[in-house]
């Protein structure tokens, strides 16, 4: 069994020591710090990129919030202006309406007064005409002059029933 050839032990141990220690020195001094720095650099880069992305998102959110605030303000302001204008116009319209209504009321009152006067005059005329007509009819029917006073009474009574 070659594993138990004792004369080969010393050279194997010497060369094992040489290669292992050499490899250890190369790894610990050069290779591993380099790999570690690359991996850490990558992790740092990813972390900083994520931070940057988070910061960008925060800025975006702020901008959106500012925009929405401005929008709400503008909307409120516009609403105010519109309300003011509407109030002003309503007041003006009301005032004009009141004026016109007052004028109209005056005109209506005047017209009603004149109608009433006309109506009274007409009614008075109707009585006279009725008396004359009634007198004429009675004269025609009876062949004699009608009693003026009696005709007037009868017309008045009839007019009251109308």
């Amino acid at each position, binding site marked *: *069994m*070659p*594993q*138990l*050839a004792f*004369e*080969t*032990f*010393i*050279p*194997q*141990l*010497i*060369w*094992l020591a*040489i*290669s*292992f220690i*050499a*490899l*250890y020195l*190369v*790894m*610990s001094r*050069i*290779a*591993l710090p*380099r*790999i*570690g720095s*690359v*991996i850490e*650099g*990558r992790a740092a*880069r990813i972390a900083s990129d994520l931070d940057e992305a988070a910061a960008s998102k925060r800025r975006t959110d702020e901008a959106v919030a500012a925009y929405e605030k401005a929008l709400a303000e503008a909307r409120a302001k516009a609403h105010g202006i519109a309300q003011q204008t509407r109030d002003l116009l309503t007041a003006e319209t009301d005032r004009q309406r009141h004026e016109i209504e007052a004028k109209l009321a005056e005109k209506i009152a005047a017209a009603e007064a004149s109608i009433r006067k006309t109506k009274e005059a007409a009614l008075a005329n109707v009585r006279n005409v009725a008396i004359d007509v009634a007198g004429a009819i009675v004269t025609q029917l009876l062949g004699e002059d009608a009693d003026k006073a009696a005709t007037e009474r009868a017309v008045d009574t009839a007019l009251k029933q109308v």
Partner: protein
Amino acid sequence: MAAEEAASGAAHHGGGLAIDPMHQFRVETIFPIHFGNIDASFTNASLWMLIAAGLVTLLTIVGMGSRSLVPGRLQSVAELSYEFVSNMLRDNVGDAGKRFFPFVFTLFMFVLFCNMLGMMPYSFTVTSHIIVTFALASFIFIAVTILGFAVHGLHFFHFFVPKGVPVALLPLLVVIEVISYLTRPISLSVRLFANMMAGHTMLKVFAGFVIAMGWFGGFLPLAFMVAFTGLEILVAFLQAYVFAILTCIYLNDALHMH
């Protein structure tokens, strides 16, 4: 290792059937080096240790050459290995284990590459030699024990006294704990060495069957070998992982005492 080498092994021994499945484990001197009485000859084992170390260096340095933010293929593999070992260490030892990361990483990658390179035909499996795995395991054992005493002082002996156990049982349990602690380097090294050796021997034996059973019968062991090679690649990874994770657990014991 694969059939080609089995064939060469057969040729080496000069007979179609006389294949030595252990031939692949032979350490052959490539050029002799001597310091006085000490034999430091450059062997095939030395060569494959250097190749493994070189490939790990290549992967982690050339692979990371561009240091891209978005990694390419080689860089991905290098970073994946780094994070794999880093997570293993953090899960088992916690943040206190960070300073041992270079050691655990070197250990894992070295064992993994030695195991994987052993799967190549004509290669030599460094980790199939008990002396190599035992040297690694005893270094870990001694270092971890020193670390335990350095961190906890004599209090580290409490490690061998289980808590919440009847006093009558304590002498027995302490002996068991001490024995189990002392056998750690043996179990650690034998597990890796035996897995590597057994798997490769098995492959070689079946490779021998492929030749012995001829053109028609040989396909059956060949099919088995293909499947078994897949399993051996899994074992090569798994044993490197087990070796590294046990090292992490021992480190954790030394640092936190359970």
